[in-house]
């Protein structure tokens, strides 16, 4: 058990920190929350800078054009980026973290050559078309159908909650090519410009169109765009779900730590703690929880670096983090009191109140127990796969 970074990990950190120190200040402020074309441009420009400096796909294997860094270095990368205030992965999320890694692992040589470099260079955006109106937690019951017609599949159906669909170039689409259940599913690369795709933006709680519903009407997708064998798409999908190897929410965790510090400073400035020790104790409790989750992250990436898989830590982390992040959001709303009633940046006699960021964070915290597998489903996974309790049904 050792928290000491190796000389190589330390060297990587220092080199990266120096680069970020000169690069980040030159990046402008992020665009408005609901200006998706501007957000696309901003996120892609950052990805391009990473590419030019040799930091694109730190965690991608070398065969895929990445840096092939270990999960520990990947952790260092995320930690330094957050510390330096670098832009978040944003609309590049699916390309860098799902579609790209899937194509590296399961794609053909020509698919790798075509699709990987533009992701790394910050030229193409991907979205994830997995969930459907009638298939969420039970993803394997999906019904969007792909029927062979010559060298094409003809796809009909609907996808929902597709993040960044409006600004995406490609979609990683799960379709039914065979019978029921997880053995009849295939994984397709679908250009978002294909005729027959209708995108209907959905407004989130935040009021922005972060995600959309897709309607697919006789969309023709070349069979050559299938990744992996026909009806083997479920396995292909599972390959990527384990890709992040323990670092999936590191950016969010570090952001939560920063927001906690800001909330505490806000409380001190406004003298909210005097006579209200319970508020201070809630701050302290969250600090303990976030420190512990940082330690758990180190355990998970150590496991992943040594064994290739993050072990049991992923679901455990997600369950605990989403709960504490929601507690932070709730505490912020309480402490901000009436300043929590808008997401416009407010100023008090002591300067900015920081309410806008806390309110946005509160919104986002609400989806942490839903997106990427609800907490109930995570608990089922922990109980059945880790603790060995009998499966339902």
């Amino acid at each position, binding site marked *: 058990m050792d928290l000491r970074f190796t000389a190589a990990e330390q060297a990587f950190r220092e080199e990266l920190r120096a680069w970020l120190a000169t690069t980040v200040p030159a990046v402008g402020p992020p665009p408005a929350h609901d200006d998706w074309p501007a957000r696309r441009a901003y996120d892609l420009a950052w990805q391009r800078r990473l590419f030019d400096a040799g930091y694109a796909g730190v965690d991608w294997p070398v065969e895929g054009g990445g840096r092939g860094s270990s999960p520990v270095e990947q952790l260092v990368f995320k930690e330094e980026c957050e510390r330096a205030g670098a832009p978040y992965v944003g609309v590049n999320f699916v390309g860098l973290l799902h579609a790209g890694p899937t194509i590296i692992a399961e794609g053909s040589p020509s698919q790798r050559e075509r699709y990987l470099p533009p992701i790394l260079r910050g030229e193409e955006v991907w979205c994830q078309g997995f969930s459907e109106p009638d298939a969420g937690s039970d993803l394997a019951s999906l019904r969007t159908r792909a029927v062979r017609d010559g060298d094409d599949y003809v796809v009909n159906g609907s996808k929902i909650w597709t993040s960044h669909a409006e600004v995406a170039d490609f979609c990683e689409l799960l379709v039914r090519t065979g019978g029921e259940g997880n053995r009849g599913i295939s994984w397709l690369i679908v250009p978002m410009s294909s005729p027959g795709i209708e995108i209907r933006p959905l407004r989130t709680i935040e009021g922005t169109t972060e995600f959309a519903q897709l309607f697919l009407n006789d969309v023709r997708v070349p069979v050559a765009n299938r990744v992996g064998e026909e009806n083997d798409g479920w396995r292909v999908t599972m390959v990527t779900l384990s890709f992040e190897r323990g670092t999936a929410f590191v950016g969010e965790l570090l952001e939560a730590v920063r927001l906690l510090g*800001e909330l505490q400073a806000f409380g001190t400035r406004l003298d909210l703690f005097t006579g209200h020790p319970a508020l201070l104790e809630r701050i302290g409790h969250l600090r303990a929880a976030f420190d512990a989750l940082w330690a758990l992250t180190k*355990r998970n990436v*150590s496991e992943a*670096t040594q064994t290739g898989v993050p072990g049991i830590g992923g679901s*455990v982390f997600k369950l605990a983090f989403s709960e504490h992040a929601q507690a932070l959001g709730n505490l912020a709303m309480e402490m901000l009191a009436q300043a929590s009633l808008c997401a416009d940046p407010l100023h008090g006699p002591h300067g900015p109140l920081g309410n806008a960021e806390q309110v946005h964070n509160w919104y986002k915290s609400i989806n942490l127990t839903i997106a990427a597998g609800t907490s109930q489903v995570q608990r089922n996974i*922990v*109980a059945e796969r880790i*603790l060995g309790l009998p499966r339902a049904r």
Partner: protein
Amino acid sequence: MDFRVDEAQRELAGGIRSMLEGRLPLERIRSSEGAPRTVGADDWAALGETGVFALTLPEPAGTGLGLADAAVVFEELGRSLVPGPLVGTFLAAARDLVPGAAAGRAMVGVCAGRGGPPWMLEHLSSLDAALCPGDLPSGGPTLLSAVRDAPTAQRVAEPLDPLTPLWQLTRLPAAQPLEDPEWRLFSDGAVLTAALQVGHAARTLELAVAYAKERHQFSKPIGSFQAVKHLCADMLVRAEVARAAVHAAACLADAPDVLAAEATTAGSTPAAFLRRSAAGAKLLADEAAIANARAAIQVHGGMGYTWEVPLHLHLKRSHVLATSFGAKGELAALLGSLPAGARAEP
């Protein structure tokens, strides 16, 4: 960085577990329920011979290991419900404060030192001394040498934990101040107490899962009901998160260079950063131990409310441990009052 529990630590834990299974099985421990002395001098000496109290002492007196190794061992002691002033004796041995502590020939208690009178002292009649980790009204940490002969001590008839005999004192005996500028007595004690708590949390999880697989209702194992599953899943989450926190604090205590670097990043000093890590680990481990014992009782239904099933012993011991080295409110307030430490400037 490799923060996994390593091979040597797994072997160490395994060795302690089989020693305890042989020497201090649950029936033997339970045979002294309610007695004024719940761990015999010979059993204590056996723990001393195994090296439990001398892990961090340099050889040949000890084994020259670190606090992280000690945390692994203390988790086993907690899991097995070993009674006695484990943490106080370890701390005194590591600092050579009380002769015989390292070898298990002396027992050193812990006195919370506040909240009195009356002050409550555990295992008093067996103690050779007691440590006050630093929150006495008189100031810094102290050692109470003649504690056993405290004139006002009165044994309580109904201690919460039948395996932790308890005395009340209206006056504390003379105290001798201890040098501890970096709060290490508190930090190390909090980490080891938290490690015991993780052991309790892990054990009650094990018991709950085993019962959920074997007990049937509605013609099914109760573990197939989602409400039961989710109780168990939450128990695992609490235990794993607390364990990571305990191990991180222990590793920081063992590695001054890493501690110094982390402290600088957080805009803190090494001593304060270690105290923060230890306090956080203690807070979460206390919660995990108590909440897991409660959840395990729930999973056991009426059986969980009986004296026979050992879950109440874990619950009660967890409450005992939660009162030393910082109670919940104190720890949370300490952590909440730290400098905000917002984004570090590059």
